[in-house]
C-alpha cells in the first residue's frame, strides 16, 4: 500500500510571542500582564501552582477567552483577533486534558471526527480515512494501531495518541499545546507519549507543554516559563533535574503565614500502638494500588498528590464510593466493609470536594442540613421534634461560627466557607470518629479557612482521626501531622510534617527527581 504523503506531512513550527496579556474575571485578575514566548520548533514548558494563570492562557490560545489587553505576535505578525477560528487558522492546536473521545467509535472515526473525508458522491471515504489515520499514528506518533479498533478497547496512552492524531491530522498544526497530557497515564505509559512529542519536535512543530510534573518538564522541555499569580516570573533556559528546586522556588515565592494552628507533636510510638484506622494494600485495580497506612486517634493525616495521582480515587475508595479490588481497611483492629451507607453508621464520614453537589441539600435550611445524618436523635417514634432539632442546630452553628447565625437560612445562600462548616456540623452532630476531608478549603475565603483549620485541629484534639486530601501543599504542611505522597497511583512516601518544607513536598508530588518517568 503506498504511503499517502499528505497525511504524514506537517507544517513548519510557529514562533509565538505573547506580551502583556491581561485577563480579568469578576473579582479576579487571572492574568496580570503575562508574557509567554515560544520559539519555532522548541518544546516549551509552562509551570505554576493552581491559580497561577496557566489554564487561562491556554484558553486564550484556544480562543475560548478573549484577552482584555496585550499583544500576540505570530511569526512576527500582529494577530488582531483572538477567536477560536483565528487561533485555529494560524495553526494552534490544543490537546485538552480530558480525552474527548467516543467509546464506541473506531480509531479512524475518532481521528476524523468533524473533519471527515468524503468521496465524489458526498459519502464518507471510510477506507481512505482509515489508511490516513493508521499512517499518521504509525509514522508521526510511532503508534501502530488498526484504524478499525474501537476506542474502548485501547489503553489510556493509546487514546491520548488518538486524541493527538485528531488534532494534527489536517497537517496544518504549527503550535501544539499539551495540557497535562500525562495526568491520566501510568508511569510506564508516559514513555510512548514522550516519544510522540519528541517526534513532533523533530518535524519542526512548536510545542507548549503544560504540566505539574516537574520531572517531566525538565526531562522533555528546551525552555520553561514559570507563572505565579497571573504573571511570568521566570524563564529558564536548558532546564535539567538539578534545577527543579529553582523552579519550585519561583513557583511558590511566598512564605507560610500563621494561618495554621500549632500541632501538638505526637510520637511515632503512639501512632503504632493504638491504630484507630488502618489501610492495608488497598487498590481499586485502576487508579491506585498497594496503598497502606495506619492512623492513630487524634491524628491529622494528609494525602498529597497531583491530578491523576489517584488521590481523588483513593478518597472515594476509602469512603466506599468506588469498590476496592485489593486490600482491606480496619477500624480499631477489625476489618470494615467500605460502603457509604455503612460508613456513616460506623462513624466514618466524608466531607466531599464538591459540597454544592454532593454534600448539601442547597434548598433545605441550615437546620435540616445539619440534622440530616442524625435524624434518629431528633425524632421520637419517627416524628421529627422541631424544637429539639433547632436547638441542636443552633448549638452547633454557634460552635462552628456559621454566619448568618439564623439556622432557618437556605444552605444555598451561604458562602463557600460557611457551607463547608454546615457539612462539618452535620457530622459533628452524628458524632463521627473518622473524618475524611476532601479539598476542605476549595472556594473558601481566607478568613473562613483559618476557622476551618482551627476546627479540624479541635476535632483531632478531641480524639477524632482526620484525613485531609488536598492539592495545596502549604495547607497540608500547615495542618497535618503526617502526609502520604501519591505519585501515579502509588504511595511513594509518608512524610512527617515537622521534617519537610513546602518546597520539599511539592518536589515529591511533582516527581521532580523524575525517577518514575520511563524514558
Amino acid at each position, binding site marked *: 500500500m503506498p504511503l499517502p504523503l499528505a497525511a504524514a506531512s506537517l507544517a513548519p513550527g510557529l514562533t509565538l510571542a505573547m506580551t502583556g496579556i491581561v485577563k480579568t474575571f469578576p473579582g479576579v485578575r487571572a492574568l496580570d500582564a503575562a508574557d509567554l514566548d515560544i520559539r519555532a520548533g522548541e518544546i516549551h514548558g509552562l509551570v505554576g501552582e493552581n491559580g497561577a494563570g496557566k489554564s487561562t492562557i491556554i484558553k486564550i490560545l484556544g480562543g475560548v477567552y478573549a484577552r482584555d489587553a496585550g499583544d500576540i505576535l505570530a511569526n512576527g505578525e500582529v494577530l488582531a483577533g483572538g477567536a477560536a477560528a483565528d487561533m485555529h487558522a494560524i495553526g494552534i492546536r490544543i490537546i*485538552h486534558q480530558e480525552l*474527548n*473521545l*467516543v*467509546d*464506541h*467509535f473506531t480509531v479512524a*472515526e475518532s481521528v*476524523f*471526527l*468533524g473533519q*471527515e473525508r*468524503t468521496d465524489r458522491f*458526498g*459519502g*464518507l471515504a471510510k477506507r481512505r480515512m482509515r489508511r490516513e489515520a493508521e499512517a499518521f499514528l504509525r509514522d508521526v506518533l510511532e503508534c501502530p494501531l488498526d484504524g478499525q479498533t*474501537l476506542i*474502548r478497547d485501547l*489503553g*489510556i*496512552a493509546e487514546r491520548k495518541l488518538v486524541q493527538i492524531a485528531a488534532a494534527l491530522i489536517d497537517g496544518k498544526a504549527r503550535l501544539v499545546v499539551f495540557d497535562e497530557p500525562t495526568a491520566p497515564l*501510568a508511569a*510506564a*505509559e508516559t514513555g510512548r507519549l514522550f516519544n510522540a512529542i519528541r517526534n513532533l519536535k523533530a518535524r519542526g512543530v512548536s510545542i507548549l507543554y503544560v504540566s505539574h510534573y516537574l520531572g517531566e518538564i525538565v526531562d522533555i522541555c528546551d525552555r520553561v516559563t514559570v507563572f505565579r499569580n497571573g504573571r511570568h516570573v521566570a524563564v529558564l533556559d536548558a532546564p535539567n533535574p538539578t534545577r527543579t528546586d529553582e523552579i519550585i522556588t519561583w513557583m511558590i515565592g511566598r512564605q507560610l503565614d500563621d494561618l495554621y494552628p500549632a500541632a501538638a507533636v505526637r510520637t511515632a510510638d503512639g501512632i503504632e500502638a493504638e491504630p484507630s484506622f488502618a489501610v492495608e494494600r488497598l487498590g481499586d*485495580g*485502576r*487508579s*491506585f*494500588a498497594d496503598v497502606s497506612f495506619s492512623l492513630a486517634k487524634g491524628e491529622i493525616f494528609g494525602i498529597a498528590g497531583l491530578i491523576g495521582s489517584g488521590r481523588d480515587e483513593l478518597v472515594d475508595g476509602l469512603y466506599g464510593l468506588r469498590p476496592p*479490588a485489593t486490600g482491606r481497611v480496619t477500624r480499631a483492629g477489625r476489618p470494615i466493609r467500605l460502603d457509604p451507607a455503612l460508613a456513616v453508621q460506623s462513624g466514618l464520614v466524608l466531607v466531599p470536594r464538591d459540597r454544592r453537589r454532593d454534600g448539601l441539600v442547597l434548598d433545605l435550611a441550615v437546620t435540616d442540613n445539619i440534622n440530616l445524618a442524625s435524624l434518629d436523635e431528633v425524632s421520637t417514634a419517627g416524628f421529627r421534634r422541631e424544637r429539639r432539632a433547632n436547638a441542636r442546630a443552633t448549638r452547633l452553628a454557634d460552635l462552628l461560627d456559621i454566619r448568618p447565625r439564623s439556622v432557618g437560612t437556605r444552605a444555598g445562600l451561604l458562602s463557600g466557607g460557611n457551607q463547608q462548616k454546615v457539612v462539618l456540623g452535620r457530622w459533628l452532630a452524628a458524632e463521627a470518629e473518622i473524618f475524611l476531608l476532601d479539598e476542605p478549603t476549595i472556594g473558601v475565603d481566607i478568613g473562613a479557612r483559618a476557622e476551618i483549620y482551627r476546627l479540624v485541629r479541635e476535632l483531632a484534639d478531641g480524639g477524632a482521626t482526620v484525613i485531609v486530601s488536598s492539592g495545596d501543599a502549604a495547607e497540608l504542611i500547615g495542618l497535618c501531622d503526617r502526609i502520604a505522597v501519591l505519585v*501515579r*497511583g502509588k504511595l511513594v512516601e509518608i512524610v512527617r510534617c515537622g521534617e519537610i518544607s513546602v518546597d520539599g513536598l511539592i518536589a515529591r508530588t511533582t516527581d521532580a527527581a523524575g525517577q518514575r518517568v520511563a524514558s
Partner: protein
Amino acid sequence: MSLAISAPSSRAWLAGLVSHAALIVLTLLLAYLALRAPNFLDAQNLTAILRQSAPLAILACGLSVVVIGGGDDVVSGGIDLSLPAAAVLGAGIISYQLSVAGSGLGTALLFGLPAVLAVGAANSLLVVGIGLTPLLATLATSVAVSGLTKLITSNRRINVSNRAIDWVRDGDIGGIPASMLLALLVFAGLAFLVHRTRWGAHLQAIGASRAVASLTGLPTRKSVALSYGLAAAAAAVAAIAILARGSGSSPGSEEPLLLEMVLATFLGGAFSRRRIVTVWGALLGAVLVTALSTGFALLQVNIFWVSGIKGGLILLVLVAAALDERLRR
C-alpha cells in the same frame, strides 16, 4: 507495573452475557416456533412475514435515527414514542380523503403526509427548542395525535379501495413484496444518511456524547432537530404501508405498533459489533419481532400471552442495555 484498565475476566464474561441476553432469548423463541408452529418456515409464511413487517420496519428505522442522535440512554436519551400515532394519523387522513371526501390519491397524500411531518416538527420544537425530555414530550404528542386521529375519523374504521394502495398490499417486484420494497427504500435512505455521510457521523458522535460533540464543534441542536424530522418522514411512509396492510385505517392501531417499534429498535443494538442502535439492526429487529408475532398466531397462543411475552422481551432488552452501561464503567 501498569495500572492500565483491565476489568476482571469474570466481569467481562458477565457483560457479554448481559449484552446478548435478549438475542439469546429471541433465538430460543424463534427456534421453538420453527419446530412447533405449523408451516412456520414455509416460503409462503416467510413472504407473509416480510409483507406484514413493513410498517413496523419503517417505524423502527425512523426511531433508530432519533435514538442514534439522542443517545441510547433509556430515560434521558433520544426516543420518539409518537411515531406510530403520527403514522396512524396520516393513514386516517388519507383514508378519510379517499373514502369520505372522495378526493384522488394525490390530494389525499397532499393532506396526509404533511400532517405526519408536522408532528415531527412539533417534537423537534419541544425537545430541541424547549429542551423537554424526549420520553415525556413525545409521549404527550403521541396522546394528542391519537386524539386528533379519532376526531378526524370519528373513531370509526374507514375502508379504502384504491388501485395503487392495493398494489402496495399485494404486489411485488421480482418476488419481493411491494410493501417490503417501500421499507427497504426507507431503510436504504436512512442507513446511507446515518452510516455513510458526514452528517451521520456527527449525529452518532452527538448521540454518544454531547460533550465530545460540542467540544469538537459539531452543530448538535440542528442535527438532533433534523433527526426527529427524518423519523417523521419515515412515519409518513409508514402511513401508506399501514393503510395498505389494513386496506384502510382503524383507530387504535398505533398501540401494538408502539411496543413492537421500541422492541425492534433496541433489539437491533444486539446485532451490532459495538452494541449500539443502528438502522440496519432496527430493520432486522422489526422482521424478527413480526416473525415472533406470526409464529404465536400460527400456534394460536392467546393474544394476551403474546403481549406479555413481548413486554417481557422489551424489559429484558432495556435492562440489558442499562446493565451493560453499568458493567462497562
